[in-house]
C-alpha cells in the first residue's frame, strides 16, 4: 500500500489522447452515445469535467419520438435495445442541451444520424460553429431506425459518401461510428478513413432478438434490437483488434506501411471496469467509451479513468500511448 502511493507521487502518467485536428483529450475515457443523454442526469452522480469527452445521444435533424415500447429487454449479461433515436432534434440540442456541457468545459462530441448523406451534411454544418462542440461522431450504425442507420454502416461506398459530405462542411474532427454487423470491419474502417474520417469508434450494438415464448413473438415492439453490455465484450475487443490491423497499413494521406495505426480508434462494447478498458487499448484503441455499464453503475466511467491511471503506475507506464495496440506487438503463440 505504502509502496504504491510513493510510486504514484513519483510518476505522473500521461493519459492524454490526440484524436486528430487538434482534439486532445485529457484522458481516454468517454461516455458512449445514447447511454448518458445530454449530461444533466449523469452530472448528479459524477463530475463530468473528469471525463476525456462527453458523447451525446444520437441527434437527428428533426425531433424523433422514438420507437413504441417495449424498447429494452435484458439478456444474459447484456441488454437488447430498440430506442429508435428518440431526441429533441438538432436545433433544440444546440439551444438547450449543449450549453450545459459547454459551461462545464468537458469536450463535447455530438453523435449525429441522418436518413441521407445530405442530412448528415446539414447536421454537421449546423454544429460547425457551436461553442463547446469539440467533434462530431457519425452514427452510421444504428440498428433501430428504418432508414439510413445501418445501411450506411454496411456499405463502404455509402459510408464514404456520408463522410465525404460531412468533411466538406466542417472543420471539426469527424469520428465515424462503425457497426460490428459486417463481414469485415477493416474494409469499413479503411473506407471511412480514406474519405476523410479523423477517427473511428467501434462497436455499435450487435443486431439481435429476444422472443417471448409465452406470447410467441419478439419481446421488443420492433422485433429486432441492438445488443450491448458485458455479453458483447470479447466480440467487440476482436473487432477493435481487426480494425487496428486494417488501419495499420492505411492512413489519411493514402500512404501506408506503418506498424502502428495512425488513425485513432475509440473502443467500446461491454466495458465495466478499467481492466475491460485496457483490453480494448491493448487491442488497438487509443480511447474507450462506457455505455451500458453506466445504467447499472453511473460512476463506472470515472472508475475506469482512475483504474487506468493506477494500472499505468503499477506497470511503470509513463504514457498511455505505449499501451495502444501493445497486444499486437507481443506476438501470438
Amino acid at each position, binding site marked *: 500500500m505504502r509502496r504504491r502511493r510513493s510510486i504514484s507521487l513519483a510518476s505522473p502518467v500521461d493519459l492524454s489522447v490526440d484524436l486528430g485536428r487538434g482534439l486532445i483529450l485529457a484522458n481516454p475515457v468517454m461516455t458512449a452515445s445514447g447511454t448518458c443523454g445530454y449530461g444533466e442526469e449523469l452530472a448528479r452522480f459524477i463530475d463530468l469535467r473528469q471525463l476525456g469527452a462527453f458523447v451525446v445521444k444520437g441527434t437527428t435533424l428533426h425531433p424523433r419520438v422514438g420507437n413504441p415500447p*417495449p424498447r429494452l429487454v435484458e439478456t444474459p449479461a447484456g441488454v437488447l435495445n430498440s430506442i429508435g433515436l428518440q431526441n429533441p432534434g438538432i436545433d433544440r440540442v444546440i439551444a438547450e442541451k449543449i450549453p450545459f456541457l459547454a459551461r462545464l468545459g468537458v469536450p463535447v462530441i455530438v453523435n449525429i444520424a441522418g436518413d441521407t448523406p445530405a442530412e448528415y451534411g446539414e447536421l454537421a454544418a449546423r454544429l460547425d460553429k457551436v461553442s463547446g462542440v469539440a467533434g462530431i461522431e457519425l452514427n452510421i450504425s444504428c440498428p433501430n431506425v428504418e432508414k439510413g442507420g445501418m445501411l450506411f454502416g454496411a456499405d463502404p461506398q455509402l459510408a464514404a459518401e456520408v463522410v465525404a459530405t460531412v468533411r466538406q462542411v466542417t472543420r471539426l474532427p469527424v469520428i465515424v461510428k462503425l457497426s460490428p454487423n459486417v463481414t469485415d470491419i477493416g474494409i469499413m474502417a479503411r473506407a471511412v478513413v480514406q474519405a476523410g474520417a479523423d477517427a473511428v469508434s467501434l462497436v455499435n450494438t450487435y443486431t439481435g432478438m429476444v422472443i417471448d415464448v409465452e406470447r410467441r413473438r419478439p419481446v421488443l415492439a420492433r422485433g429486432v434490437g441492438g445488443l450491448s453490455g458485458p455479453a458483447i465484450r470479447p466480440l467487440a475487443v476482436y473487432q477493435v483488434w481487426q480494425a487496428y490491423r486494417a488501419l495499420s497499413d492505411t492512413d489519411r494521406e493514402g500512404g501506408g506501411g506503418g506498424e502502428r495505426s495512425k488513425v485513432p480508434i475509440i473502443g467500446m462494447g461491454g466495458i465495466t471496469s478499467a*481492466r475491460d478498458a485496457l483490453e480494448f487499448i491493448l487491442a488497438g484503441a487509443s480511447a474507450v467509451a462506457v455505455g451500458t455499464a453506466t*445504467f447499472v453503475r453511473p460512476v463506472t466511467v470515472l472508475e475506469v479513468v482512475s483504474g487506468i491511471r493506477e494500472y499505468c503506475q503499477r506497470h511503470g507506464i509513463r504514457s498511455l500511448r505505449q499501451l495502444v495496440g501493445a497486444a499486437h506487438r507481443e506476438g501470438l503463440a
Partner: protein
Amino acid sequence: MVAAPQLQDAVVTRMERHGSHFFTIGLRAGSIARQAEPGQFVMIAVHPQLAADSGFLAISSSWDPLLRRPFSIYRVNSAEEEIFLLGQATGRGSRILAAAVPGQVYSVLGPLGRPFRVEPGWKHLLLVGGGAGVAPLVFAGERFAARGIAVTVLFGFRNAGSVIGWEATSAWATSRYLVTEDGSAGKKGLVTDVLRRLLASASTTTTSTSSSGCDCGHGPAPTPARFDAILACGPAVMLKATAELARAAGVPCQVSAERTMGCGFGVCLSCVLPRPDGSYALVCQDGPVFASEEVDLSG
C-alpha cells in the same frame, strides 16, 4: 425540490419472508432514508457487492442479471437510517434478491423519481393498492397521516396468503378496506368494486364511518366524506379502472406506474409511457407518480 439521488453501498439490516412470494428487506442507506419521499423508488442491484479491489473497483458479484431492479420505498426508519423494500419474488432478479441475508452489502441507487404530491388544504386521501403495489402507499399513508391528513386504505390481493403490508396500516389509517379475489380474507371481489361504492357514498353523505368491509376496529369517528385525492399503485388494469372511476367522480387521482427500467435515472429512454399527445413520458424521471390524465395507462 426533490433531492439528488445517491449511489450507496447499503448493509442489509433485516430480511423477512412472507408466504412464498413476498419479502421485506431492510437496508442501512442513510442519505436515501433521510431524503426519500413517498412514491419514490430505488434501483437495487440483485447481487451483493464484492469487497473493493484496488484498481479494479468494487463491482457487483455477477453481471447476470445485469440490470438493477426498481422497488418503491415501502417504509423508512429515520432514526436507524434504514429503508425497507417490499418485494415480490417473481422473476429471476427478484428471486436472487430474495436470498439476501443480513450483513451483506447491496448497491442501491436512490431516491429516484417524482413522489406523490399532496396539495395544501387536502384533508382526506384514499389509497388504492393491489398486490406488491401497496408498497409506496404504506409509506405515503404513514407520512401523510403524521401530517394530520385522514387516510382511507383500500387494498386488494389475490388471496389471504398474499395479503401484505396490511398490518402496517392499522397504526394510522382512518378507515380500512380489504378485498381478496377469492374472499379468503376481507371481502370477496376487486378493489374497484369497493371503490365504486366509496366514491358513490362520498358524494351523497356528509360523513362516512368505517363500513362493513372495514376490519380496523376503529370507533365511528367521523372522517371527511369527500376524498381530496386518490393515490393508486398496482397492476395496470387496476390503475386504469381506478383512474376512470376517479375521473367520473371528479376526484384527482395520482397513479404510480411500472415499466421495465434500464437505468432508473433518465439516460436509457426505455421506460416510456405514452402521453395523450403521442409523446412519451419517462416513468423513472417524469414519474413513477403521474396525475392519471397525464399518461395513457393502457399504452
